[in-house]
């Protein structure tokens, strides 16, 4: 596709429409920060144009341009129902410019909270993976124990991990350690169950193939069974990861001193809905970012699959 063709995309038209809408007079009484919205839209458009010239793969470019298009539509509608026509309660629904300006103002505070949330999630998740994968491999490979362990893991993974919170609070000293503990449990069972089912479902022919190469003991477990069960292990990890985020933000809304859930809860208690919406959007972006990185890791480690 030529550069000219690449430039012909409805997203750029949407960008122009969004800017034109900003020419309409504001009807909302409060400060609407049109400047922040325009700056953000221009930045996004600049990224898109840069991508148009730099991104080589057609599919990746199309994805980028389409997503940006959606964001422009969303911003335009949001700006129309708030700042321009004042259709919604301005206290509960601040205009987009105001949220963007708030984000810029609070950026260092937000960064600290993101770091806190990610730190807890990562700790709990990694501890769970490090414990669950070897244990699952070992028990799954031991045919007799495997059957029993599969049922037990099903039992435990069916319990919503949030009910462990009272025990965590009774046993552990700080909010952070309770959160790590709950995320550990929330991730441990799905990863353990995934590993076990992965091991139990390894193709007999692959095991035979390893046996005739005289692969034995730990090498069988880590060089053959582990990579062969990796697709199912990742299924468990994905499940654990998404549950972890939900759990953590809910837990932070109850008792934390920092973290993104705390940020949202703290400011909504003061009726500061600009910051509440800012926090919601940041949580969404962080979760998408982490999931994206995790998917890339998964794609890389499973690149041998068709």
């Amino acid at each position, binding site marked *: 596709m030529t550069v000219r063709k690449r430039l012909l995309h409805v997203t750029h038209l949407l960008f122009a429409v969004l800017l034109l809408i900003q020419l309409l007079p504001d009807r909302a009484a409060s400060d609407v920060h049109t400047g922040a919205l325009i700056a953000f839209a221009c930045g996004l458009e600049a990224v898109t144009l840069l991508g148009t010239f730099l991104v080589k793969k057609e599919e990746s470019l199309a994805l980028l341009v389409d997503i940006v298009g959606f964001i422009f539509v969303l911003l335009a509608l949001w700006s129309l129902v708030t700042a321009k026509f004042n259709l919604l309660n301005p206290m509960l629904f601040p205009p987009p410019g105001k949220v963007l300006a708030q984000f810029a103002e609070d950026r260092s505070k937000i960064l600290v909270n993101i770091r806190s949330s990610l730190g807890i999630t990562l700790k709990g998740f990694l501890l769970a993976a490090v414990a669950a994968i070897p244990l699952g491999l070992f028990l799954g490979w031991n045919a007799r124990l495997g059957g029993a362990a599969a049922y037990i893991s099903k039992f435990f993974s069916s319990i919503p991990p949030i009910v462990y919170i009272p025990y965590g609070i009774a046993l552990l000293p700080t909010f952070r350690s309770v959160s790590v503990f709950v995320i550990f449990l929330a991730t441990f069972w799905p990863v353990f169950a995934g590993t076990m089912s992965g091991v139990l479902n390894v193709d007999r022919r*692959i095991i*035979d*193939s390893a*046996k*005739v190469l*005289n692969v034995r003991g730990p090498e069988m477990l880590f060089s053959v069974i582990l*990579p*062969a069960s990796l697709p199912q292990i990742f299924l468990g990890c994905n499940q654990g990861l998404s549950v972890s985020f939900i759990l953590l933000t809910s837990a932070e809304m109850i008792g934390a001193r920092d973290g993104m859930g705390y940020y949202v809860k703290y400011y909504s208690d003061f009726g500061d809905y600009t910051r509440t919406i800012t926090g919601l959007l940041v949580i969404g972006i962080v979760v998408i970012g982490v999931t994206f990185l995790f998917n890339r890791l998964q794609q890389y480690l499973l690149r*041998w*699959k068709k």
Partner: protein
Amino acid sequence: MTTNKIEIKHLTVDYTERGRSFNALHDVSFGVGAGEFVSVIGASGCGKSTLLSVLEGIYQAADGSVEIDGKALHGTGKERGVVFQHYSLFPWMTTRTNIAFGIKQARHDISRRECLKIADEFLGKVGLEGFGKKYPSQLSGGMQQRAAIARALAMNTEILLMDEPFSAIDAKNRVVLQELLLSLWEGDSKEHRKTVVFVTHDIDEAILLSDKIVVLTAHPGTVNEIVQVPFDRPRRRESLTQTAEYGQFRNRLLSLLYHDVAERIGGEEVVI
């Protein structure tokens, strides 16, 4: 007394499936000389793959014994290399890592770098130069079997066990692979040739490759007859298959196979 590389004596194997046990092989005896290429043929379900599983060391015999160099066989061993019909290669390793992994398993004394070097050399021998970095899923079935053969050869085992290695390959590529295997095996000088046990249901494949053919009868699997292949080596498919002797020999094998089938049909119910 002859000294066979592999000596199978009165082998009986029971097979358990869904809790039901049945006799897969009954009193099977034959020997394979050092450097001999022996094919085992028979209708499907005659236990020829089960026989190979016992030789591989992954299946236990109920009775009888298998001896290699006069010693009773127990489990898998470094003197045997195996090529299966499917999944000989690990899907998560590249072709060359697969081969290097096999070499490393057979010989712990050499470094990983040397293993990779040998792997590349054998990839070349089977016509897969430049495919070392591909994963099995990125190769065609025929190429996967080439790589599997390369691994088995690179491991430099005295014995090669092949379980219908070309059965899942399309007819045209199967012929190419048969000729590749033939030329690689015949390429070694007579005293260095590997001892091969090759399981197949393809009569032409068996004749082209083998010194000796063991014909099995089904239910339970027993040796019907052991036939020496009377054709000189090196063999060429085109010249071999056009001779009258080839046709006669082929017919003899066919009747050995179908005689059994006809008997079974006649014994139970005549459908034709």
